[in-house]
């Protein structure tokens, strides 16, 4: 079972890695310390992927949403909200499990051995609500309300919180550009401290950023129960052994809530189920699992 679990997990990481490479394939940007400026940047990517990463060929939906909300001429982001509605209704948090480069980064960090990994702690359930507060306050309200004399708001989530921007954009661009190195200040130190905290926390806790902070995960979580891609529990086949819940790194009790907002569709539960009672369901049809958990 463990071998099957490991194979399935690494198959998923291969898909995540291919997606991360495809969406950050402007490799010359890393060599020259500049970013891609082509027309693909009109399009949002489904996962959290900083558009100021030298390799990025698409736009981060959370950054794009703040850019539109914070612009002087638009206040409701129809384009980005429509994209998120589309992606969420089709996939839910499958995006988090498979199509988010920062999710892959945390997955790999959590593979670093440590004697006492933390599965849960007293404030865990309460902290999981924090991502909804961050979405409402830093992504929507602050860029809409706190504006300059031109009526433009800053991308407060990106500016004050997002460790993906620091990792994918801040570190490579500052390392590659002397002019940027001379401009760093308290904000850069703050954001690097948050990135360091995220890295340390990711070794101890599975995907802490996704569980507690990520506003994109908050958006997609709302669609898990209605998404076209979702799980189905075969109640007749289920023997109630709890192997699914025990295997879940997001601590979802799948027997009680098969499409929990916290489920990132990693497929660990499907691989762990001894009777194959968890299925992928799509538009009225279901099919059995394979090793990726898809």
């Amino acid at each position: 079972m463990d071998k099957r679990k490991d194979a399935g997990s690494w198959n998923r990481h291969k898909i995540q890695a291919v997606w991360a490479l495809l969406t950050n394939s402007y490799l010359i940007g890393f060599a020259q310390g500049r970013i891609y400026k082509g027309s693909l940047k009109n399009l949002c990517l489904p996962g959290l992927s900083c558009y100021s990463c030298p390799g990025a060929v698409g736009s981060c939906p959370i950054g794009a949403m703040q850019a539109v909300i914070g612009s002087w001429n638009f206040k409701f982001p129809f384009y980005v909200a429509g994209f998120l509605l589309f992606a969420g209704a089709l996939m839910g948090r499958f995006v988090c499990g498979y199509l988010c480069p920062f999710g892959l980064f945390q997955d790999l960090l959590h593979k670093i051995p440590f004697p006492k990994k933390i599965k849960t702690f007293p404030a865990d359930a309460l902290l999981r609500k924090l991502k909804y507060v961050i979405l409402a306050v830093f992504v929507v309200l602050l860029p809409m309300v706190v504006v300059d004399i031109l009526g433009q708001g800053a991308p407060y989530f990106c500016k004050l919180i997002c460790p993906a921007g620091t990792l994918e954009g801040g570190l490579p661009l500052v390392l590659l550009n002397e002019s940027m190195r001379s401009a760093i200040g308290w904000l850069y130190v703050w954001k690097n401290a948050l990135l360091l905290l995220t890295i340390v926390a990711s070794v101890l806790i599975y995907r802490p950023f996704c569980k507690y902070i990520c506003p994109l995960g908050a958006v997609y979580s709302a669609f898990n129960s209605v998404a076209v891609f979702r799980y189905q529990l075969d109640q007749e086949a289920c023997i109630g052994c709890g192997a699914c819940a025990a295997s879940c790194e997001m601590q979802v009790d799948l027997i009680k809530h098969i499409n929990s907002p916290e489920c990132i569709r990693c497929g660990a539960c499907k691989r762990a189920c001894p009777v194959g009672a968890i299925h992928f369901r799509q538009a009225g049809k279901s099919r059995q699992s394979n090793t990726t958990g898809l």
Partner: protein
Amino acid sequence: MKRQLQSSKAGILLALAGLLMAGVGMHRGEMSTVFEKAVKICMECIGIG
């Protein structure tokens, strides 16, 4: 089974609504706002300004 099918239909309808909304946004010119932001290095995002 009926509930499952209704949920699937809800997902498809929401996805179509999302496409419609995105189309409205593109028609309003929001895509150019996204593009302009994405092709300049976002100083706030990388922690510089």
